[in-house]
C-alpha cells in the first residue's frame, strides 16, 4: 500500500495557522453556527453557559396561553435594554391577552406566528434562526425571545442604555455656530447628521470590526457627490482590519491611514456634526465609530487643519493668515532665537542685541540648552494640565507661571527672553484648530531647535526643507497632503490663505474628484437693487435734500 506522503508545512504557513487558531479562540465558532433548537431548555442552558452565569444576563421563563401551556423564555442583558418598553410592548400583551380572537386561539402549534404577528407591539423586531446571530443581537441590546417548539427566535429591538445627552463639544469651541456635539451612541450621531442633510442619498453603511468588541463602524457619504473610488477604498481598508478591539476612532485611524510612520495626522477628526455635514457635502467620506464622540473625515489635507468650521459662519479675513503665521512661529521661533543669539548676532538690531546680551548674562547654559529646557518644561506642564484632575488645575497655573517662569529667570538659570519665546510659541501653537496637527507642529520644533543649535540658520532652513519634503511625500487616501498648495491649484487658494465669501466658492474642491463639482449657481454676488420706476425712494430722498439745501434752511431738518 502506498502511503500518502504529506508535504511538510513551511514554517511561515505553520506560523499563520497558529496565528489563525489564536484569533479563532476569540470567538467560539462551533457554538455560534448552531441553529436554534426547538428545545427551549437547551437554548436557555446554552445561553447561560455562553455567558457563564454573568450577573447582567437576565433570563425570564414563563408560561402563557389560555391554559398556560406555551412555554417561552425572554433573555436580555440588564442595562442595555429599556425595561419599561420591554414590559409594555413585549411582556404585557403576552401575559394579559391570552386569546387573540375567536378563530385564532393561542395554541402551542401556532404560538410563534401569532406572537410575531399579533402580540408583540414593538416597532422593530427581528426573526433569527442562528444562535450566533441571536447572540450578537442580545449583546447589542436586543432581547431574545424563545418559544418552546420553534426553531426561530424573536428579537425585539428594545435598546436603551444610559447615554450622555447631546452637549457642546469640548475640544472645538466656537463663538458662533451650532452647539451640539456627537455623543457615544452611533445612532444619535447619525441622526444629528441626517437632521442637517435631508436627502435620501445620504448613506450610512455599517460594518462590524473587532473580534471581541464587534464595534459598529459607520461609513457616511452622499451618493452622487462622493467619488465612488474613495468610498470603495475606505470600505476596503475597514474590511481588511482584523483585530480584537476598536475602542476609539484612534484605533481605526492607525489601521487605515496611508503612511504608517509619520508624525502628521492624515485624517481629520471632529466632534461636530456640522463639520461632518459640511465635509459630506464637499464630497468626503466620514467614518463614525460607535462608543466614540469623534468622527473621522477622509481624505484630509494639511491645509484643512488650519480651517476652523467657524471660519464659514463668522467671516474673519485675518483668521487664516494668523494661523499660517502661528504655524511658522511655533515651528521656528525658538530655533530662530537660538540661531540668532548663537551664530548670527549681527542680524539682531543693535539695541535689541545689547539688551538680549544683558539678559543672557550669567545664564550658565548655551542658548540651545536653555531653549530646550524651557520648551520641555512647557510641554511637561501642558501634558500635566491635560491629565490633571480638574480641581487641581489652578495649582498648575500658579506653579507654571510663577515658580518655573519667574523664579527660573530670577535664579539666573534662563534669560527672560527665552521665557517670552516659549510663551509665544505656546500661545501660537494653540491657534491651530486641529489638536493633532498642533501636537505635530509642536513636536517638530525640537529637531529644528537642535539643528539650529548646531548649524544656525543653515540648520533651520535645512530642517524646514526636510519637513516640507516629508509632507510632500504624504498622501491621504490618495490625495497629496499639501494640496492645493502643491500640486498647486491657485483657484482653490481662496479657501486656504483666506476664506472667500460663499458666493465665490461655486465649485467643490478638485482633490475629491467629486462626480458633481458644481456647488451652487454662479454669479450670486449680492448687489444693491437698481433704482427702477416705482421704487425711487433714493431719488426722492436726494430730491428732498436738494430742495432743503437750496432753500438754505439746513438747520431746520
Amino acid at each position, binding site marked *: 500500500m502506498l502511503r500518502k506522503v504529506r508535504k511538510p508545512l513551511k514554517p511561515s504557513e505553520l506560523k499563520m495557522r497558529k496565528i489563525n487558531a489564536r484569533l479563532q479562540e476569540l470567538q467560539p465558532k462551533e457554538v455560534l453556527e448552531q441553529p436554534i433548537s426547538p428545545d427551549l431548555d437547551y437554548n436557555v442552558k446554552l445561553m447561560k453557559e455562553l455567558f457563564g452565569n454573568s450577573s447582567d444576563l437576565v433570563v425570564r421563563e414563563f408560561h402563557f396561553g389560555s391554559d398556560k401551556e406555551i412555554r417561552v423564555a425572554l433573555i436580555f442583558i440588564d442595562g442595555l435594554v429599556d425595561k419599561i418598553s420591554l414590559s409594555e410592548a413585549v411582556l404585557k400583551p403576552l401575559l394579559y391577552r391570552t386569546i387573540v380572537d375567536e378563530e385564532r386561539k393561542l395554541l402551542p402549534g401556532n404560538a410563534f406566528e401569532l406572537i410575531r404577528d399579533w402580540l408583540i407591539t414593538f416597532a422593530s423586531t427581528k426573526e433569527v434562526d442562528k444562535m450566533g446571530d441571536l447572540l450578537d443581537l442580545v449583546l447589542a441590546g436586543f432581547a431574545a425571545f424563545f418559544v418552546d417548539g420553534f426553531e426561530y427566535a424573536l428579537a425585539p429591538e428594545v435598546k436603551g442604555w444610559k447615554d450622555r445627552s447631546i452637549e457642546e463639544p469640548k475640544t472645538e469651541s466656537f463663538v458662533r455656530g451650532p452647539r451640539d456635539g456627537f455623543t457615544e451612541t452611533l445612532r444619535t450621531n447619525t441622526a444629528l447628521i441626517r437632521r442637517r442633510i435631508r436627502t435620501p442619498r445620504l448613506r450610512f453603511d455599517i460594518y462590524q470590526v473587532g473580534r471581541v468588541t464587534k464595534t459598529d463602524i459607520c461609513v457616511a457619504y452622499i451618493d452622487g457627490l462622493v467619488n465612488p473610488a474613495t468610498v470603495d477604498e475606505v470600505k476596503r481598508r475597514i474590511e481588511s482590519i482584523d483585530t480584537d478591539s476598536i475602542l476609539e476612532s484612534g484605533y481605526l485611524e492607525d489601521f487605515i491611514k496611508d503612511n504608517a510612520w509619520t508624525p502628521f495626522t492624515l485624517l481629520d477628526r471632529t466632534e461636530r456634526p456640522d463639520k461632518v455635514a459640511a465635509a459630506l457635502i464637499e464630497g468626503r467620506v466620514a467614518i463614525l465609530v460607535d462608543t466614540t464622540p469623534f468622527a473621522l473625515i477622509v481624505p484630509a489635507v494639511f491645509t484643512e487643519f488650519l480651517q476652523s468650521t467657524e471660519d464659514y459662519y463668522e467671516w474673519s479675513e485675518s483668521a487664516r493668515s494668523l494661523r499660517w503665521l502661528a504655524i511658522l512661529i511655533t515651528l521656528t521661533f525658538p530655533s530662530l532665537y537660538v540661531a540668532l543669539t548663537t*551664530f*548670527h548676532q*549681527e*542680524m539682531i*538690531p543693535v539695541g535689541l542685541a545689547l539688551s538680549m546680551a544683558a539678559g543672557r548674562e550669567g545664564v550658565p547654559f548655551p542658548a540651545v540648552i536653555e531653549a530646550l529646557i524651557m520648551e520641555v518644561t512647557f510641554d511637561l506642564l501642558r501634558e500635566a494640565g491635560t491629565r490633571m484632575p480638574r480641581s487641581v488645575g489652578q495649582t498648575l497655573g500658579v506653579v507654571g507661571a510663577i515658580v518655573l517662569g519667574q523664579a527660573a529667570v530670577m535664579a539666573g538659570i534662563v534669560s527672560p527672553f527665552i521665557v517670552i519665546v516659549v510663551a509665544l510659541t505656546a500661545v501660537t501653537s494653540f491657534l491651530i484648530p486641529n489638536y493633532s496637527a498642533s501636537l505635530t507642529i509642536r513636536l517638530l520644533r525640537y529637531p529644528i531647535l537642535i539643528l539650529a543649535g548646531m*548649524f*544656525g*540658520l*543653515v*540648520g533651520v*532652513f*535645512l530642517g524646514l*526643507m*526636510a519637513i*516640507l*519634503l*516629508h509632507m*510632500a*511625500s504624504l498622501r491621504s487616501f490618495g490625495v*497629496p497632503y*499639501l494640496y492645493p*498648495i*502643491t*500640486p*498647486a491649484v491657485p483657484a482653490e487658494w481662496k479657501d486656504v490663505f483666506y476664506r472667500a465669501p460663499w458666493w465665490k466658492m461655486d465649485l467643490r474642491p478638485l482633490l475629491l474628484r467629486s462626480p458633481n463639482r458644481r456647488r451652487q449657481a454662479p454669479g450670486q454676488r449680492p448687489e444693491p437693487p437698481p433704482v427702477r420706476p416705482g421704487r425711487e425712494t433714493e431719488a426722492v430722498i436726494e430730491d428732498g435734500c436738494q430742495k432743503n439745501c437750496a432753500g438754505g434752511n439746513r438747520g431746520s431738518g
Partner: protein
Amino acid sequence: MGIEQGKISRRQAVFLVTNTILATMVLYVPSLLAQETGQDAWVTVVLAGAGGVLYGAIVVFLGARYPDKNLVEYSMELLGPWAGRAVGMIFGLFFLYLNGAVIREFSELLVSLVMPETPLVVFDTLIVSLAAYGVYLGLEVFARVNEILFPTALFISMGFIALAIPEMEFYHFKPALVHSLPALLRGSALLFSFYLEGTALLMFYPALRRPEEGRAISYQVGFLLAIALLADILGVIALFGPEETARLIFPTFELAKTVHLGGFVERIESLIIGIWITMGGLKVMVFYYVSVLAFAESWGLRDYRLLVLPMGIILASLAVLEFADTNQIRSFFRYMPAFTVTVLGGITAFLYLITLIRAKRTGGKTDKDDKNKKKAS
C-alpha cells in the same frame, strides 16, 4: 517603462528646470559677466537667452520624439545597448561630477559667508543628506516642494532687488554698447553654458503629465530665466557699477547687504542664505536624481533607490576632493562652459543628428509624427 512612475505637471517642470539653471547662475555669473562685458552685460543675457531657446527646441524635439523614454533609454534604443549604455554612463558621470562642484560651491559659500569656523565637510554632508532624502522620496515629491519654494525664493529675491532701488545709480549703464562683439559673445557663451544644464529635463521628460507641452516648457523657462537674470544683473550693476561688480565675489549677496527698511529691517542678508540653501538644495537634488537615474537605467536596475546611499557617499566625498581651494573653484566655473558644452551639448547634438539621420533613412513616417506633434502643441 521607465523606473520613475511619478508624474509632474507643466508648472512643476518649468520651475524645476528654471531653479536648476538659476541656482548657481546667480552666484558667480554677475561678477564674471561684469569682468567680460561691464555695463553691457544685459546684452549677453539677451543673446544667451536666444541661444537657450534654440537649445531648448533641440531638447524638446528629442523629448517629444520619445515621450515615454528618458535620455538613457532612447540612446540605448538609438545606438544599441552598449553605446547607449556608454552615453548613459557619461551623462550620469558628468552630472555626478558637476554636482560635486555645485555642492562644494554651496558649502564654500555657507562657510565663507555665514559660519567661518565650521568645517566644509559638515555643510557638504548636510546638503547631500537632504538631497538624498529628496531623491529617495522621488521626483514627484521634490518637484512639488520646488513648486512651493522656487516661486517664494524668486519673489523674495525680487523684493530684495526692489528694496535696493533707492541706492541705485542708473548712470552706470552709460556709455552703452561699447564692448566689442567678441567680448559680448564670450559673455554670452558663459551664460549659455548654464542653460545647457536644462538638458536634465530629458531625464524626466517621460514623467511629464502632458509631454506635448514641451515647447511651452522651454519658452517659459527661457522667459523666467531672462527676467530673473536681467533683474539681478541690472540691479547689481546699477548699484555697484561695472568695475566694482567685477571685483566682488558674490555681488548678489552684497546687494542684499545694502537693503535697509525703516531703520528696523537691517542686515537681513542672511535671508539670502536661506534662499540659496533652498534653491541650491533643490538643484543638487535634481542633479543627484539625474545621475542616479542615468546609472540605474544604464545598468538595467528596476529601482534607482538602491543607488541613493552609495551615490550620496561618493557625492559628499567628491565635493571635498574635487578642489583644493576657492581659487580652483572659481577657475573651474570660469572654464566650465567648455566642459558643459562638450559633454552636454555634445551628447544632445549627437543624439539629435542620429535621430535626424534615422528619420531620413526610415522615410517620412517619423517626420510626419513630428509635424503632427508640433501642430498639437
